[in-house]
């Protein structure tokens, strides 16, 4: 609001132009921002300290002390008066009514609480039941997976045991090496348009045809 008013002031318009409210008053609020340095023309200006004579200063202090004391006493007086007035005007009927209303409110609140408690307990029980069910499902699933894994591992072991007699160890290594050296293996093959496979790197299906080298 203040900023708006300042803008209006810049436009040489009063607050009256904005609103007909007579209580509205423009506030003079313009200050240099903190980061702007002292003006160059005022750089070496030393403001004069006002010299107030001692007697005058004492007099001013006395007057202001008096003023403060009197204001305090008036404020206390008004507070006291207000409190006593409030206590006097409170009548019995109203008090009773208020108490009855409070009791009714508490009763209603208790009733609601009972209802809410019932639904809450039902909900929590259902939630727990659901969670227990889920957990049981998870346990079963985990058991199934574990059993499957075990079965797989056992299958692997069985398979390996079955082929274990073909493994080459230090006893039959010489035979295996001799066999390997004498039997050359060739995985290369060629195919013709009919999809026939001709194994071997340089083999041709017959003398006329030349096998495609892979």
């Amino acid at each position, binding site marked *: 609001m203040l900023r708006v008013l300042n803008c209006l002031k810049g436009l040489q318009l009063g607050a009256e132009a904005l609103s007909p409210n007579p209580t509205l008053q423009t506030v003079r609020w313009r200050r240099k921002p903190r980061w702007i340095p002292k003006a160059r023309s005022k750089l070496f200006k030393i403001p004069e300290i006002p010299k107030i004579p001692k007697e005058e200063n004492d007099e001013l202090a006395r007057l202001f002390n008096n003023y403060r004391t009197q204001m305090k006493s008036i404020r206390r007086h008004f507070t006291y008066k207000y409190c006593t007035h409030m206590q006097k005007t409170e009548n019995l009927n109203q008090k009773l009514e208020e108490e009855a209303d409070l009791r009714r409110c508490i009763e209603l609140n208790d009733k609601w609480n009972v209802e809410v408690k019932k639904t809450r307990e039902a909900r929590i029980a259902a939630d727990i039941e659901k969670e227990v069910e889920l957990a049981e499902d998870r346990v079963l699933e985990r058991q199934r997976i574990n059993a499957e894994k075990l079965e797989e591992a056992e299958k692997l072991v069985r398979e390996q045991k079955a082929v274990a007699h073909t493994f080459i160890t230090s006893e039959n*290594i010489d035979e*295996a090496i001799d066999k390997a*050296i004498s039997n*050359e293996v060739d995985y290369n093959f060629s195919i013709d348009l009919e999809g026939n496979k001709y194994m071997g790197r340089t083999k041709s299906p017959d003398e006329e045809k030349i096998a495609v080298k892979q």
Partner: protein
Amino acid sequence: MITYELCLLLRVMPKKELAATLKRTATAIFDKSGFIRKIENLGTRDMPYKTSSHGVVYNKASYFLIEMNVPPSTVEELKEEYSRDVDIIRRRVYKKIPPSEAECTLHEEMLPAPYRKDVQELIASSKKLQKPRFSYNSGLDYYPFQK
């Protein structure tokens, strides 16, 4: 238990020396408490490019494949041991991958485009994206929209 494939390129040697080298190679595996599943001789052939090893340049090599099981921690030691063997030109250890079971779908792929399943799916998905259009046999004798 991991099955490894050891590919060896051996110097071209007489049969006796070749057997001795292979024996040496195999013994190293057995010493590392491993065993061999298979030894294959892939023949003596020209190498794709000349290869130097232990200060000698080779153009030909005997290719061997050894399928073995060794503790994985000893694979590096084995490789290091073979690298010191002057009869071995190149050595490489791979993990054996079981062959994938792929079904042959060539007869489906050879069909004309509109009969192929993936093409049909594509057409169906593109039809879904098409905007609804005005049909001219709807009883109106004029086109109701801006042309």
